[in-house]
């Protein structure tokens, strides 16, 4: 009575065949514990060998302190660091490399805007808008700055499918709205928000927009000039890059309005006992010794992705998630969250199974070699909206394949066999 996983067109598609070969670029699938059906890329992606090697190469051959050293290692360190910035600027089509601020993560990037920009611009009674689907990293910084400034945190509601009603939401923003902070892709629902349209309507009222791009950049083509957003935040580790590095993109006029979050070495021109003057942008926002190998590894990752093609990656992952959706939706007692069939979604699929706790689903999956996540995914406000305390989540990336889905379905069926009503 339980469905057999359906065969899809996937394996006959020549593009898919290329992707099967790309899997070999990721050493973890050859050398890590086996079997490994890694379906937790939305938490953090695996790394291709080229990224890992670029980090080793940096430390083995080229390592020196970034900025203003006068010897060859220091000069090449600065060059590599700035070349990485340029690669990233190019990747999201920023107008200039100076609009890319290296941070440790999307989380730091968002906190920088909250404390460095919003705190300077919020008056009591003002509003910041976030959606009900935001990750805690794009929620808590706004909650805090609103409290600090006597402003109000307002919530853009979702419909039953986990979508933002664009027409309705336009009516929400008004004279008191100072910022809209919204994710491009939900890390739970897989929803792809219509950022371009939201920005366009926000522009009519001069409301700046920050885009949380942790789940979008590196997964689909993202063009900040096309989106016309004011700020955009992301992390390298979700797009096959190293941990400990991310960036904030900002329009030049917005960055000029922003105070640094961290003060320290490298971000000042003149320091006196009484006062100091900040260095130029983006150095102003990068206090402390720059993370050279992180920047180099990040740039290598986006070059790798660009080499494959962002459209191809997006399509491949969409095919996979669609196949997963089809296979999972025919399991008895399953609830799938987010956009239904026919609606656009990214490679993230959350679900629950009647009577089985998501922790048990994930744990039994783990015993099958299937790595999925269970929990609130740092989205408690969304969980409240869905009326659950947690979900199971499978997320896909370019290195996944049909067997991963087959294994996932088998694991879910096994969880039902073990824990379902007897």
């Amino acid at each position, binding site marked *: 009575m339980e469905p057999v996983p359906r065969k899809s067109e996937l394996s006959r598609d020549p593009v898919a065949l290329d992707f099967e070969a790309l899997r070999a670029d990721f050493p973890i699938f050859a050398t890590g514990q086996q079997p490994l059906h890694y379906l937790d890329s939305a938490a953090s992606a695996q790394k291709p060998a080229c990224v890992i090697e670029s980090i080793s190469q940096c430390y083995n051959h080229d390592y020196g302190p970034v900025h203003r050293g006068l010897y060859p290692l220091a000069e090449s360190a600065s060059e590599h660091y700035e070349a990485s910035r340029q690669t990233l600027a190019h990747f999201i089509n920023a107008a200039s490399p100076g609009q890319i601020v290296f941070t440790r993560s999307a989380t730091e990037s968002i906190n920088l805007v909250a404390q460095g920009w919003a705190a300077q611009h919020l008056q009591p009674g003002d509003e910041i808008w976030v959606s009900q689907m935001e990750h805690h990293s794009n929620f808590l910084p706004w909650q805090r700055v609103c409290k600090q400034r006597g402003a109000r945190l307002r919530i853009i509601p979702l419909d039953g499918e986990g979508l933002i009603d664009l027409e309705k939401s336009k009516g929400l923003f008004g004279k008191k709205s100072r910022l809209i902070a919204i994710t491009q892709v939900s890390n739970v629902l897989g929803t792809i928000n219509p950022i371009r349209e939201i920005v366009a309507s926000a522009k009519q009222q001069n409301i700046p927009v920050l885009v949380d791009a942790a789940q979008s950049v590196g997964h689909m083509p993202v063009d900040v000039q096309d989106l016309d957003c004011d700020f955009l935040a992301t992390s390298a580790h979700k797009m096959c890059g190293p941990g400990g590095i991310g960036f904030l993109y900002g329009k030049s006029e917005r960055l000029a309005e922003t105070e640094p979050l961290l003060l320290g070495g490298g971000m000042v021109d003149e320091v006196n006992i009484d006062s100091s003057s900040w260095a130029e942008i983006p150095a102003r926002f990068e206090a402390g010794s720059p993370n050279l190998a992180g920047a180099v590894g990040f740039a290598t990752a986006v070059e790798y992705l660009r080499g494959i093609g962002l459209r191809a990656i997006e399509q491949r992952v969409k095919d996979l998630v669609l196949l997963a959706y089809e296979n999972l939706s025919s399991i008895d007692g399953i609830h799938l969250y987010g956009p239904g069939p026919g609606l656009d979604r990214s490679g993230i699929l959350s679900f629950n199974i009647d009577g089985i706790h998501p922790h*048990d689903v994930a744990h039994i999956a783990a015993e099958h070699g299937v790595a999925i996540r269970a929990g609130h995914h740092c989205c408690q406000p969304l969980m409240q909206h869905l009326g659950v*305390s947690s979900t199971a989540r499978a997320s896909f990336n370019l290195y996944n394949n049909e067997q991963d889905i087959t294994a996932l379905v088998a694991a879910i069926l096994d969880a039902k066999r073990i*824990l379902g009503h007897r």
Partner: protein
Amino acid sequence: MSSDSVYKEVLLDHFHNPRNKGELDDMDLVRRGSNPRCGDEIEVGIACDNGVLETVRFRGRGCSICLASASMMSECTSGLKLQQARQLSARLQHWFNSNNEIPPNENLAALGTIRQHPARKKCVLLAWQALDETLDGIEDRR
């Protein structure tokens, strides 16, 4: 399914046929343990007479391990003296927080496989920590 699965028969039996699960209206004292990280919540109620736990009952929601552990807890502690229940709970918790291989009680041995999974420790301990609080509460009343 690998042989070191945590989903062993003993646990599954407690999950599917929980002992002492039900309403707590008639208990002397009820305390709640909750894990905000996963939304799990176990209420433990005790009824005691002359320093002995006549009844230990629970209700709530949680994963199979959380519920099985609650069921096993209620079974192992019903009929114990307060002091004995306290000791058992302490030993169970010590077992989970140390490298000591020996379970505090044969009937709890099935929980052993979960010690390899630190992320699920809290699932096992939730009911026991709620039990501790009921025991604290009873002592305060005296």
